[in-house]
């Protein structure tokens, strides 16, 4: 893995994540998240997980965020005036989470001289090996996920119908 590329895209991911959280305008916020997904896709590609990288762009940047932005535009949200009490609560929650993450990171760094990773084999991260794993070793989680998605679809149809 090329360290220059890694630090470039890693830095981009961090910066865009910060920008996403700090923007007042919801559309700008959503767009920085899209850029963040790109940085992530690049990191996946550097780890030679090509399939995941493409799927990251296709699903997250191309489909899910488009729906988010679509909804924001439809509701025509303005720059929100956040209520003081909400701000306090969210600050508390965010602070707690940050502390938790820092503890996790430190614990992880202390444990780092673990066994080195195996060298990735030829064709690692391509479509065919990922598909083979999905349909053999991880078949049950894969099928359960599809059931979960079906439940979500049925739920949204029911909710949509009730309003009509």
């Amino acid at each position: 893995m090329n360290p220059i590329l890694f630090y470039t895209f890693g830095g981009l991911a961090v910066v865009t994540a910060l920008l996403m959280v700090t923007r007042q305008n919801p559309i700008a916020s959503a767009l920085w998240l899209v850029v963040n997904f790109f940085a992530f896709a690049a990191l996946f590609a550097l780890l030679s997980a090509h399939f995941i990288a493409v799927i990251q762009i296709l699903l997250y940047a191309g489909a899910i965020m488009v729906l988010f932005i679509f909804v924001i535009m439809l509701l025509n949200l303005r720059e929100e005036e956040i209520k003081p009490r909400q701000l306090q609560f969210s600050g508390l929650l965010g602070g707690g989470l940050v502390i938790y993450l820092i503890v996790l990171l430190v614990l992880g760094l202390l444990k780092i001289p673990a066994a080195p990773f195996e060298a990735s084999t030829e064709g690692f991260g391509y479509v065919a090996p990922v598909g083979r794993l999905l349909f053999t070793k991880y078949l049950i989680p894969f099928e359960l996920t599809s059931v979960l998605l079906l439940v979500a679809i049925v739920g949204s149809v029911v909710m949509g119908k009730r309003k009509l």
Partner: protein
Amino acid sequence: MTDGILAAVKTFAIFFVVINIVPVLIWMERKVAAYIQDRRGPNRAAILGIRLGGMIHSLNDVIKLFTKEDILPPHVNKPMYLAAPMIAMFVATITMAVIPFADPMTIGGKKFLLQIADLDAGLLYVFAVSSLGIYGVLLAGWAANNKFALLGGLRASAQMISYEISLGLAVVGIFLLAGSLKLSDIVAQQGSDLWMWNIIRQPVAFFIFLAALFAETNRLPFDLPEGEAEIVAGYHVEYSSMKFALFFMAEYAHIIVGSCIITTLFFGGWHIPFISADWMRANADLLLKINWAGFALVSILGGGYIAKWFRKGKYGDLRDFEPLVIGVPGILTGVGLLGLFVLFGDQVHLTGLWKGIFIAGLQVSVFLAKALFFCFFFIWVRWTLPRFRYDQLMRLGWKGMLPLALVNILVTGWVVLFGGHHT
């Protein structure tokens, strides 16, 4: 290092080709529209009396768009307003990166791909990039701060999301048959046998894909995002000068890319029906002679046909000589080629590098010919069918094409499983 330079050259070449087909397509659009509506089309703009059948109009357009005042309306969201046309054009052109234009050439024992990147997830890359195209339209609609633009942007995004699903599902059948997502594998699997092309083996997928592609490119009969009668011009209503031109070019670039993808997926890519790449390599000299003589003959006949239009005193000015200016060089070129063919035709033997270049050139031309036919098809449909109503569009997408695509996957899966078609 050389790989990087090669990739840069290829990227530039492909971008250059796309950018230069755009004005040709605009000319084609105007001419085809005119002939479908029984009129002559653009025929006024001229350089020294030469009109090239109206093609000079495209040049005039470029100069007009470059020199127009670039207005930045005061009420827009500036960064997004500026980013939207760039995204639109960028997304439309980078899809070309994975399209194979010809068989890989072998130069000095090294394989030379005629495509920028042969990605393992090739077709997924195409979908991933084309799904980003929504951002250009959506941001343009929102940043303009104009209710017509916003409506156009919303319509575009709803439409593109709906049709992307059918677009993606339609090609799953092709994945099943080819056993790969690589575009070069899909082309190789179709081969030069016409009956193995996916248009024959996956006709349902082809029609779903075609209809969804029209919706993706926002072309008639699905051009509701810019429905002039209802919402002025839709998402690009606030844009002027080159920023508008970028949207305009992106639309045509989308058509070119879409045609290339249809050609690759369903029409055998660069294959010539019934003439395999191996046969071409073995009989390169014969093919060169056929092409040489054929080109000479076409030049003479075409030049003669154009020169026949010459009438003295038809207009009474320089325009009289236009057929001669185009026709006579055509005839002369043809005669010259024919003469060279008679003199040197027997002595020419293609070897090594030249043979590879000749065959690759032939394959690229075949590919571009197929792609240009589909570009024409896009224009043909635009001037033939009326616009859909919005609810009809959504009903067709969700209740018609989506179930059909699912049934197609099921049937193809059965055939592959029980028919032993799997390669």
